[in-house]
């Protein structure tokens, strides 16, 4: 196991972009090579050592055994684990935009909050955020009509609007509350929300499953109540309690399922 420890030494109001700091790119690099890795700040390209102290522990033969541990105030560090395909990243702070976006494999843990675009269009791997997340988590990028299509997102806190916009596949588990338009345009995948949802869940949903363990004020007119099921088996998992099943969105001839705990 190789651990690359990065400790932030300088914070700037201009965000830095971290897409070159990935286990698959750094697992076989020396300390000097890692220190010289390019990161981006605005229109400038700078070496990693300008902002971080680097330390290496152990060694590994492939990227799956590589861990990048990042310390310091990362609230202006964007693209942590962007397009990552293997290994592990732990960010011990709040993080900026695009954490885990486009990731295809590996595991990212954020011990803090995340800005918008977390896990957007991810196709594999696991993204776990211990705090709150802002908007467009697990969604598609602007102009794109294919969102998250694989992998797993676990959010321990609350989530902003448009969660899983255009989701195709994969799993999302939100332990807190969720803002408007969760699962909008969803055409596959599974979302579990343990907290409350503001409104308009599943708008224009074609397929997929949403389980809501908290409360919602009202459903969109496109959803039809089907039945009440006790302890339903949903997506291979038993949910304990009485659940109301809605199907829709009829506006798009959708066959999505929304299960709401009574």
């Amino acid at each position, binding site marked *: 196991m190789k651990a690359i420890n990065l400790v932030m030494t300088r914070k700037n109001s201009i965000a830095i972009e971290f897409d070159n700091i990935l286990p698959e790119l750094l697992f076989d690099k020396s300390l000097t090579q890692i220190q010289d890795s390019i990161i981006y700040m*605005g229109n400038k390209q700078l070496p990693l050592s300008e902002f971080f102290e680097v330390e290496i522990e152990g060694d590994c033969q492939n990227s799956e055994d590589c861990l990048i541990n990042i310390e310091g105030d990362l609230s202006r560090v964007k693209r942590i684990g962007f397009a990552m395909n293997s290994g592990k990243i732990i960010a011990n702070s709040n993080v900026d935009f695009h954490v885990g976006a486009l990731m295809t494999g590996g595991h990212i843990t954020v011990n803090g909050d995340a800005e918008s675009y977390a896990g957007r269009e991810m196709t594999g791997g696991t993204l776990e955020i211990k705090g709150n997340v802002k908007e467009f988590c697990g969604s598609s*990028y602007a102009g794109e009509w294919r969102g998250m299509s694989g992998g797993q997102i676990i959010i321990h806190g609350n989530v902003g609007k448009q969660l899983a916009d255009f989701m195709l596949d994969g799993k999302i588990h939100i332990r807190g509350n969720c803002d408007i338009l969760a699962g909008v345009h969803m055409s596959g995948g599974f979302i579990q929300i343990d907290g409350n949802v503001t*409104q308009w869940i599943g708008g224009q949903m074609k397929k997929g499953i949403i389980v809501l363990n908290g409360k919602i004020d009202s459903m969109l007119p*496109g959803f039809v109540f089907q039945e009440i099921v006790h302890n339903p088996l949903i997506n291979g998992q038993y949910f304990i309690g009485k659940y109301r099943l809605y199907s829709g969105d009829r506006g798009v001839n959708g066959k999505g399922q929304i299960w709401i705990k009574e």
Partner: protein
Amino acid sequence: MIEKPIKDYDKEVKNCSCSYCGNNCDDITYLLKNDEIVGVRHACRIGASKIINDQDQRLLSPMIRNDEGILEETTWDVALDKTARLLHNSTRPVLYGWGETSVEAIKKGIKIAEITGSVIDNQSTICHGTSIQAFQNVGHPVMTLGEVKNRADVIVYVGTNPMDDHPRHLSRYTTFPEGFFRRNGRQDRTIITLDPKYTNTAKVSDKWIQFNMDEDYLLFNALRMLLKGEELEEKEVAGVSTQQLEELIKIMKNAEYGALFFGLGVSQTLAKQKNVDVLIQLIEDLNRYSKWSMLPMRGFFNVSGFNIALTSETGYPYGVDFSRGYPRFMVGETTTIDLLNRREPDFFMAVSADPGVQFPGYTIKHLVNIPTIQVDTHWGPYTELSDIVLPSTRVGVETEGTAYRMDSIPLFMKKVIDKPKNCHSDEWILTELYKRIEQLKQEDE
């Protein structure tokens, strides 16, 4: 008091384009005396006021703010050199505005953004940007205003008040004009306004449907259900009775040619782009029964032109970030308001726009702490914040150029009078700036 018609003029210039709103009325006549505009015909009250008061508060010389905080007149060379150096040395520059200049100038601006690694953004970021996102996501059934004039028998305005914002929209394109298939003008058309407020447009409409603010998404979803022949369980949706909605859908389904116009009352309320998204799908659904199209009510006369030019060059409509050498666009990340709220920009240039009027207070505060450049025609709140002022000329009055109307029709805007002696067109200013930045880049190499 009724003002008398202007008779004291020596020249008429016909078929000019108005450089105020997205209507781009191209039937304006300017009345000149000694090569100065003394009157205007056919323009609306806002356009006329803008044209006639053109020389009021006019910026006439380049200025630089001195150490005591006073704007001092300077030469073009000094002002341009300093601007070029500031832009060249910045890390997160933002070039904002562009809604009230020509496409020719916008293209120069895009080139500058590309070589300096800047973010280039326009007023869409605070108005119809969300609509454009929806167009890119789900498509957009388009039309021209000419089609509306000649064919439309049902006009629906949603969340917009053209009687006050685009005063000639109803008289020139939608409601009152006689069209090829609408010989009786107003009598042949049904006008419906959907708006939480009883606006002046609602007052001249045949039907006003009041719905709850921020519930557009719910309303349009319900309309889609009704259009599909589904029954609604609710007696009221978004504050509108189901019976009213059924009547509305009946009128829309039976239209021979329907045209829907929407404004910021749709694109900037709670669900933002998803409001527009579901509205587009409602219009698409309506096309199974009749011919329907839709358009956003664009504000500035060339705000649409910027989106078209930028999309043509980069694939993205606004908020394009060239910091990595290639274009990127992320709503909330590369858009001006968000960048300023995050205190990221270290250089800000506004071209034919006044952020001092348009931006929220918290956003503007950051502009006080960074180098700010104004390229514009008139003194405004942003002038008070600017470190360098580069006075430009008005497109369609002192400079010719191309602008795109709200329905994406390009219009040539002709020059009517000579520019003030020490002012230059946006295109000239940006070309000079580009040359200087290129030179600085060569010196670096």
